[in-house]
């Protein structure tokens, strides 16, 4: 019989999203070293931010002047993908860390397996969502969730965002576009392609309700048992080290 996956459920609330990045890496190291159980985390943060992908250039992607004026923080993810504006009031972020054996196959296969947790979770909200390869979840053809993965010593980390509400104009006020001459057209295009739970449901669901649906969705998708649990002392120590020495440094965030 296949081994059942046991996941710790952890909720972390931080000022800055950079701290969530440090928690991600600390969790991943602990799971890879067998010090801690795999985990499903819901990440709450307070400062609006721009997250850029591992291989992106801040200068190419972010309007620094606008970020400074609006008090928007910039941070680099350990995962690839694109730049996104992160609004603490409009999105639910999660991070799941599991051994590769629970999401085997190609990288795309593992995205599908893990994104199924969100797709099934959204069904509990009455929404018919679908996985769209490589890393998106759509409702009625429009993107509602973006996800990204990294791997370390047999462990997969996937983190992502679920849009509860969305303000595309605000998003583009801090991001650069490839061609300024067609900025308005690009924004209109994104508005056509992106949706939110509020838009699809006709009301804004509570964060708690979405959180509960995600837990149910991941339980079903991964045949997992999910139990609330604390971070280990190893993780707590690592988080401080990683925040101070990596995620809160310009060497990391502005390295390209």
């Amino acid at each position, binding site marked *: 019989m296949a081994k059942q996956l046991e996941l710790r459920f952890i909720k972390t609330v931080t000022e800055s999203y950079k701290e969530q990045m440090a928690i991600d890496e600390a969790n991943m190291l602990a799971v890879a070293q067998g010090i801690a159980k795999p985990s499903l985390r819901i990440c709450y943060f307070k400062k609006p931010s721009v997250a850029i*992908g*591992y*291989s*992106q*250039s801040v200068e*190419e992607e972010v309007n620094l002047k606008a970020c400074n004026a609006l008090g928007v923080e910039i941070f680099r993810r*350990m*995962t*690839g*993908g*694109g*730049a996104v504006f992160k609004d603490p009031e409009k999105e639910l972020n999660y991070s799941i860390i599991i051994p590769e054996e629970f999401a085997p196959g190609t*990288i*795309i296969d593992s995205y599908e397996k893990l994104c199924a947790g969100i797709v099934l979770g959204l069904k509990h909200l009455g929404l018919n969502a679908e996985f769209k390869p*490589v*890393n998106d979840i759509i409702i009625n053809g429009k993107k509602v969730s973006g996800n*990204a*993965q*990294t*791997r370390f010593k047999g462990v997969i980390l996937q983190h992502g965002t679920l849009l509860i509400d969305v303000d595309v104009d605000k998003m583009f006020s801090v991001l650069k576009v*490839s061609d300024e001459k067609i900025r308005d057209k690009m924004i209109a295009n994104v508005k056509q392609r992106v949706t939110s739970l509020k838009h699809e449901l006709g009301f804004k669901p509570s964060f708690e309700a979405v959180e509960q649906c995600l837990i149910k969705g991941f339980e079903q998708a991964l045949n997992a048992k999910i139990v609330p649990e604390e971070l280990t002392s190893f993780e707590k120590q690592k988080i401080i080290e990683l925040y101070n020495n990596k995620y809160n440094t310009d060497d990391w965030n502005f390295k*390209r």
Partner: protein
Amino acid sequence: MKIALKSLKVVVVKKTVEVKKDKLLRITAEIHKDKNQPLIQDVRITGDFFAHPETVIEELEARLKGIALQEQALRVVINNCLKNATIIGFSSQDLLDCLLKLKGS
């Protein structure tokens, strides 16, 4: 030994090229043009692609330094460097085509 003055002339050109399919691949490079065969002096590869492991891109940038902008030489470096990596968003051929665009003008 007599060295022709012309051969001492070193020109470094900074150039950005890109390809955009599902994901953006942007290459910014300094090209050393003092010989018949232009060389990559420095290179930065950026974009919203996914590389597994992520650090393979920095490794590739390091290995491309000093390499001639010539198809075979570039292909060897790309294939060696990416042989154990998974890239989602561009192929080795896209990368090669993009690097070769640096030769133009």
